[in-house]
């Protein structure tokens, strides 16, 4: 009897310990070598992708990956589809558990964080030896370089352009899209009177809001955090009254757009979903957006794609746009860095990019057949990316600063001062602040 009871209690305990062991031991197994029945070695590459399931990008990627596996019979690509909302949390968790995939999609904003974790491979030598690297614009590679080491390669570009509904503009008696902030600001009454719709759209919240804010700051010749000597960073607005004035002007611009009715009053809390959907539904005439908006326009079916065109965003001091680089991150913990790089190189090949990233390829030789892709690609040279620092606290502060003027109706200068201070506080906490 006693023996039986012992067995009853020991078995679940043993199973529990086995479960714990299985959870903790995955890092040694994933990625990695499996013996084939024939005795050869099969390398498994863990690849986390964030494409939209069922999209053209997803389907053509899968076809190309199958082709790669056929050409490299000793390599298996284990693809995990994870959407962008979950990708960040999953990557952060897996990196800290020393169980990152071999290669993944990601956002450019995560570069500083992942580099701070020491999670990324140094790709400098690989890219130097790769003939295709000269097809990638210099500013794209620079944006992915930290302390002279290339820490990621571009997957696709999400250059932002002024996407405008030509039909609505024409109905309002406007022949050309605005080239400056002032021209944009003058269009509010004209468009609303003629069409009953708002002139412009912004995202006041979510991931898109800091991306738009950094663009407007760049158009006013401002940097979020300037790189100082020794590879450290600092926000310099507080030290330079001219810079603070220009930063204040950016927040004033946001406030004016809201107060003058250029944008929908709800746009202060819009995220990318509301911004994209409302434009695709014809609720307003112009938006700063990326190449993907074409899919949204076509899926909503409310406006005709032929009536929509792309040009440079309206400028102020200088011409600038947000250069969204969606990179491939290759992780330090891989057991097969050479094979993982070969796979990344395959995905950066002209053949792969022509099939998968027709409108948003980082390769200068791969451009969409129509004006749409080309219009966005031409904006790469005026693109500004986020500084290569850990951005979590900084993007939160950017959202807070926008909320100060758009939601709380606070003074634009206070918002600019708050943002400047918070950026430096965050840099200090993360050990990235320059005392210069």
């Amino acid at each position, binding site marked *: 009897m*006693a023996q039986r*009871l*012992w067995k*009853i*209690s*020991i078995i*679940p*305990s043993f199973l*529990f*310990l086995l479960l*714990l062991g299985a959870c903790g031991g995955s890092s040694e197994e994933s990625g990695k070598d499996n013996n084939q029945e024939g005795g050869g070695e099969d390398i498994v590459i863990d690849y986390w992708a964030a494409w939209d399931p069922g999209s053209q990008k997803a389907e053509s990627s899968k076809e190309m990956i199958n082709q790669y596996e056929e050409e490299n019979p000793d390599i298996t690509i284990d693809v995990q589809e994870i959407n962008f909302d979950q990708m*960040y*949390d999953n990557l*952060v968790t897996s990196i*800290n558990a020393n169980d990152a995939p071999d290669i993944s999609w990601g956002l450019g904003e995560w570069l*500083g*964080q992942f580099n*701070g*974790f*020491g999670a990324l491979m140094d790709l400098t030598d690989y890219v130097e030896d790769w003939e295709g690297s000269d097809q990638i614009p210099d500013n794209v590679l620079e944006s992915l370089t930290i302390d002279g080491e290339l820490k990621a390669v571009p997957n696709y570009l999400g250059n932002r352009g002024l996407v405008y509904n030509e039909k609505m503009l024409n109905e309002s008696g406007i022949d050309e899209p605005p080239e400056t902030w002032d021209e944009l600001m003058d269009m509010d009454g004209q468009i609303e009177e003629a069409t009953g719709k708002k002139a412009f759209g912004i995202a*006041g*919240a*979510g991931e898109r809001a800091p991306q738009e804010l950094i663009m407007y700051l760049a158009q006013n010749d401002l940097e979020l955090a300037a790189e100082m000597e020794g590879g450290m960073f600092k926000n310099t607005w507080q030290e330079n009254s001219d810079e603070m004035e220009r930063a204040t002007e950016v927040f004033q611009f946001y406030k004016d757009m809201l107060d003058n009715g250029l944008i*929908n009053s*709800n746009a*202060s*809390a*819009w995220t990318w979903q*509301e911004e994209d*959907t*409302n434009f695709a*539904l014809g*609720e307003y005439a112009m938006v700063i957006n990326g190449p993907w908006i074409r899919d949204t326009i076509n899926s909503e079916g409310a406006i005709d794609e032929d009536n929509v065109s792309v040009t440079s965003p309206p400028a102020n001091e200088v011409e600038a746009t947000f250069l969204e680089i969606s990179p491939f991150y290759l992780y330090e913990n891989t057991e097969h860095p050479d094979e993982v790089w070969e796979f990344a190189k395959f995905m950066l090949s002209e053949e792969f990019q022509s099939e998968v990233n027709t409108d948003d390829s980082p390769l200068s030789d791969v451009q969409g057949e129509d004006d749409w892709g080309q219009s966005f690609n031409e904006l790469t040279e005026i693109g500004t990316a986020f500084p290569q620092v*850990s951005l*979590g*606290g900084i*993007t*939160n502060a950017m*959202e*807070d600063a926008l*909320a*100060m003027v758009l*939601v*709380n109706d606070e003074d634009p200068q206070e918002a600019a001062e708050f943002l400047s201070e918070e950026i430096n506080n*965050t840099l200090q*906490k*993360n*050990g*990235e602040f320059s005392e210069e």
Partner: protein
Amino acid sequence: MNNRENRTLKRETRSKLIAYAFILPALLFFLFIVAYPLFTVLWDSFQIKNLINPETQGFAGLDNYISVLQNPNFIPALWNTIGWTVLSVTGEYVLGITSALALNQKIKGRAIFRGIIIIPWVVPIVIAGMTWTWMLTPDYGVLNIWMADLGIIDEPYYWLGEKDTSLLTVVIVNIWRSFPFYTICFLAALQAVNREMVEAAAIDGAGIITRFRKIILPELKSVSMVLIFIHVIWTFINFDFIWIMTQGGPARASETLPIMIYKFAMEEFNVGIASALSSMMLAFMLLVFIMYYLYTSTKNKG
């Protein structure tokens, strides 16, 4: 010591060993799944621990706790958490008990209604949150369109995008999702209420409210206490509904303490401060538990 005493001792030792063997799996679960993470959080709350800046490490003393208390967003988030918890649990309780009383009546199609009412509770929170977000959107959300058509509102309103209504809107959605749990529990408890006593009270002239207050409600007291207690905990620490629907916005108007913890840990990677705030929440919940324990033990003694 004679043989008989010896045998008794052996039997007692064996019984104890068997008891320990039964406890062992639960103890292992407790140690690895509960105690270890809990101890780690408490330990980290006294450490300088920033994942981005691993070079700066060491004992922080109470600095992390002070940082949390000095954070300008802490007090608003605390009030939001209290408001979110109190309003949610109150709403769930009222709706739960009302629907349970209604479904306890002999009405046509009662079984169908009892089945349908559980649906909100079985819908995954992500799906429910995203669907409600879509329905509440001012420009193309069905609820706004219906309310405007019915004349309840003059024009579509951004329920989740305005500071005054964002948290309240999520509270309503949370009540919608959670009240069926109360309904089912109350329905079960109502089956134990003595019908003859209720009928006798009615014959003696007790009105519907008196019958509810004097006979039914006392019978539901125990289940009410358990429901309120566990829902206060569940709601206080709830993260997903608010994150999915507002991410704590606009302008942090719906930010609660769990959202703050997430932002500290997963966006700023400051594990020390995130752990300090988590420990403070843990202490608060522990206090609630002790108060509940004292209340029930005093009541049982009485």
